[in-house]
């Protein structure tokens, strides 16, 4: 592989997969309060 292709592949991986990791970490850290009082998954 040529250098520019390697650089762009790494950039894409870091930005996209890194963005995913950050998004997951942020969601977990923020920790939404789940509505456990609502039993919404009853499906008639």
């Amino acid at each position, binding site marked *: 592989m040529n250098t520019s292709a390697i650089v762009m592949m790494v950039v894409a991986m870091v930005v996209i*997969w890194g963005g995913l990791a950050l998004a997951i970490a942020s*969601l977990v850290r923020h920790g939404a309060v789940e509505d456990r009082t609502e039993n919404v998954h009853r499906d008639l």
Partner: protein
Amino acid sequence: MSRTADGATAQPDQERRRGGFSSRRVFILAAIGSAVGLGNIWRFPYVAYENGGGAFVLPYLIALLTAGIPFLLLDYAIGHRNRGSAPLSFARLRRGAEGLGWWQVGICFVIAIYYAAVIAWALRYTFFSLDEAWGADPEGFFFGEFLQAGDVQVTADVVPGVLVPLALVWLAVLAIMALGVQRGIGATSLVFIPVLVLAFAALVVQALLLPGAGAGLDALFTPDWSALTSASVWAAAFGQIFFSLSIGFGIMITYASYVGRREDMVGSGLVVGFANSGFELLAGIGVFAALGFMAQANGVAVDEVAGDGIGLAFVAFPAIISEAPAGALLGVLFFGCLVLAGITSLVSVIEVVISAVRDKLDTGRLTATLLVGVPAAVLSLVLFSTTSGIYVLDVVDHFVNQYGILVVALVSMLAVAWALRALTGLGDHLNVHGRPRVGTGWRLLTSVVAPAALAVVLVLALREDIAAAYEDYPTWLLLVFGWALVVALPLVGFLVARLPWRAGTHLDGPPPGADPAMPADAAGAGHHEGGPR
């Protein structure tokens, strides 16, 4: 609050009847399952390659952040705040907007009937991979022996080799749908998505170990910076993000309505958006590594073997499988991934229709599944298990995507932003439990940037279709299964919207307690119970 005496208990009970995802994790996996579909595997790699290679990363990311994720959050906000299927959610925004929801439902119904056929092909090819049934001529095998495609015409000549797997796909999907939101869609996503990621990762590793893989990755990632000055490259990036994220045609509205009221929809949206792009990147690496191997094996350049869509999956990949070491494994992984990705997307598309029927008619889960699923399956079998199935599928797919999804998404977005002026309320709703907070930037992106980008994509597509008949198909075929279909869908949608809601349906605003951003007494203001109108 509802002005009816029993309003306070009626709404939670209604939600229990609708069903819902048991946790944030299940919802996120289901949303990823919907977004990650056949297009991620067979469309993204070629779009990236054709539009600047490595340089495409820039417009792609800009499109993701300025249009894809903001639009995804808009869908989430509409469904999560209004706690209903697409028609019910739009009706709760404003009664006259209900037709937009039914237009989206119609598009989903059409997509479902042909999408199932492609999954059926992939299912059959998973088994063909074991003994490389296509022999030395994958193209001739696919169009001739497998599909038995003849002249371009509509026939009733059934192809049993397609009919049987297609019937199996419908049986499996209807079983999932009948089980419900959590036990059907949720449970399927919990199993299928991790398996899909692991199987595709294994495929990528195998492809990267093939000789010539580096040449394929060179072709995909070598940047052509001059491409960034081309409007069509930017349109391709916005188009790819838009088509890939399952936004604008009811799916994310429906799924969001099944999520707990206190959930962080912004954070969930970011995870879904980046996960979808992450899978596309993985697919790009795997597909082009395999294409690089094929090019080297045949002593040609990668551009001579690169392709997308049906040609990539059912012609190029079988050729790669025939030449690669452990080709059967590669084939089972590739076509198995298409089946898994396809099923999780198909159930999300069908759920839009089932959810709408349930909300409108107050039917049970099984009844609605049969009411929607049986006609869909019959139409699917009649149209796509015949010798003319491939032509009808190609035309319907092209027109429904370009002028169905694209137009309804654009019209819905403009209506919500400019006619209903609902963005501030929807943004406030997202901000109650969502982080990061959305504000003026998000409103600007959803009301101006994203619609403008979609309009450009639409105009470019329209210009192309007016300049030349799509794929040189006969005019009658394009008129009947293309233009007539996309014109009929909004008409039917707004006609269905004239039918009365089941008695007691809360319309005009979110149901009581659904929107913490709104004072409780305001939720019921202008409350209107459903019924003839």
